[in-house]
């Protein structure tokens, strides 16, 4: 009896969480003009229209370039920062670590406004580069957390053994540390990409005029009307942001298994 109640309750929670998402996916295949029930038939029509909508395609391209660059920069910085924090005795290590993680703790709106005011103060105009830097700032903590956790688990013995065998510190890093770190680096990259791809708050504040990412494009479209195209776009977004990390996780696991953990 008690267990059944818990089961029903759990089911309801999941329904509450995922039903709206399911509705969006379902409606994106609706043949009707209007993006709402009742369904009048099954169709890929909105996906086709989506693929022909230049504004959306441009936004998509921007998002992907932005996400990819964010991932690469964030991961590079994150790996270097983690190495410094975990492997070397940096003065003020705890403070630096806290500062690097802080963007997670600060509400994104506050961070967004702060950066904007700061740029204003420096009399720098908004640009794609600054948007990119904004994304790097708030994806960096995730990369650092993931990479640090893995790095702590990699015993120093490995690096010391490599050094004793004649590898220079740089060679030891690329031969030993980086391959052992690869699953975390990969996961961090995916994190950064997905977070950047998904972000709207910061992007709205930072994006220069005329540049739209997918989320800001959806937002702009919603202001005019609720087109079924948005449902289709939502579906594509869901598959990208859910599917990509899952795929990544699977690859990372495989890599970890092959390398013997």
């Amino acid at each position, binding site marked *: 009896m008690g267990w059944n109640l818990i089961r029903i309750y759990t089911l309801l929670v999941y329904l509450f969480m995922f039903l709206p998402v399911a509705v969006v996916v379902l409606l994106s295949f609706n043949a009707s003009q209007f993006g709402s029930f009742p369904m009048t038939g099954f169709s890929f029509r909105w996906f086709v229209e989506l693929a022909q909508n230049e504004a959306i395609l441009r936004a998509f391209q921007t998002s992907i370039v932005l996400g990819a660059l964010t991932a690469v920069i964030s991961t590079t910085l994150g790996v270097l920062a983690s190495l410094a924090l975990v492997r070397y005795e940096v003065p003020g290590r705890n403070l630096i670590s806290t500062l690097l993680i802080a963007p997670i703790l600060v509400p994104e709106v506050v961070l967004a406004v702060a950066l904007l005011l700061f740029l204003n103060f420096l009399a720098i105009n908004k640009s794609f580069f600054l948007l990119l830097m904004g994304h790097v700032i708030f994806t960096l903590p995730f990369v650092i957390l993931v990479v640090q956790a893995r790095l702590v688990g990699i015993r120093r013995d490995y690096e*010391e*053994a*490599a*050094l*004793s065998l004649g590898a220079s510190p740089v*060679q030891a890093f690329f*031969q030993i540390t980086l391959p052992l770190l690869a699953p975390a680096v990969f996961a961090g990259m995916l994190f950064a990409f997905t977070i950047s791809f998904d972000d709207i708050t910061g992007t709205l504040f930072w994006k220069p005029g005329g540049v739209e990412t997918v989320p800001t494009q959806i937002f702009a479209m919603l202001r005019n009307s609720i087109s079924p195209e948005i449902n289709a776009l939502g579906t594509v977004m869901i598959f990208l942001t859910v599917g990509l990390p899952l795929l990544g996780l699977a690859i990372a696991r495989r890599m970890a298994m092959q390398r013997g953990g």
Partner: protein
Amino acid sequence: MSAVTLTNIVKKFGGFTAVHRMSMDIPDGSFVTLLGPSGCGKTTTLRMIAGLIDPSEGDITIKGQRINDVPIHKRNLGLVFQNYALFPHKTIAENVAFGLKYRDISKADAEKKVKDALELVQLPHVSDRYPKQLSGGQQQRIALARAIVIEPDVLLLDEPLSALDANLREDMRVELKRIQHRIGITTVFVTHDQSEALAMSDRIVVMSNGRVEQIGSPEEVYNTPASEFVSRFLGISNILPATCKEVNGSGLALELADFGRVTVPKERAPNVGEAGPAQLVIRAEKLLLADKTAPLDDRIALDGVVEAVDYQGQAARYFVRVGGHQLQAVNMIDQRPFQEGTAVSVRFRPRDCAALPGAAA
């Protein structure tokens, strides 16, 4: 020639001094063990020789060259760790060949060297496997092969046996000694296990609290401990407060309660030079328990009572009361061990004893 010399090495970590003014010579081709409890500075010393830690003061030379400022990857050392530290993402062959990549060696030569090294450690058939697929003992052999394949000037072993289980540890001990002997490589071995140190070393450096307590052959440190610490750390010793009455040609005449006068040979008491407070050291296995009726020999006989027995199979460890002293004796068991409460005759030869300077607590 000395392969490694340390001269007045000091290592401080903040306010804590891990190694105090340590000096030692490690002869070419010898097997030297740094022995001591955890925190005595033995691993710190090894890591300074390896170049993983910089000494705060003093000089380290390898083959006559001062290497304080030479980074670890240019020192040409073989290092073996407690946890093997085999690269998990590389095969056994790649692991062993790792150090050869950084030396001018042709591919064919490298392959031959890897093969020879794997044969030396008696694991020629595992080259394509990954470290995870090997047992602990096998992994440690591979780690050893990886360290010696580069023909290092010195082999540094940091508690290499302590992660293995007891039976395997003894096999590996023999194996390690065999390999060291065969290639004649200068070896510095760090351990807290006295039996490993006694079994394997040419010389033992006993350390405590960052200081060298004694340097000597296994027999020297066992039979003629230079300090109370050494005699307590190696084996089981009875250390009894005594007074040195006189030093003469035949030895040191010590007097102590319930024992009377015991004359210890001079060479067993290098640190006691004159009359005054001293300590008598009797190894537990040199203290023989006998029936009260057993015929006397050249041993001194005292009356005692067995207070506790720790049965160990072929031997037994007894706690015996002799007057005001509680003594420990480890004897082989002839027929049956003595039982608790038995009155026994406690016997020892004065020439088996050693003496230390006095002021026992």
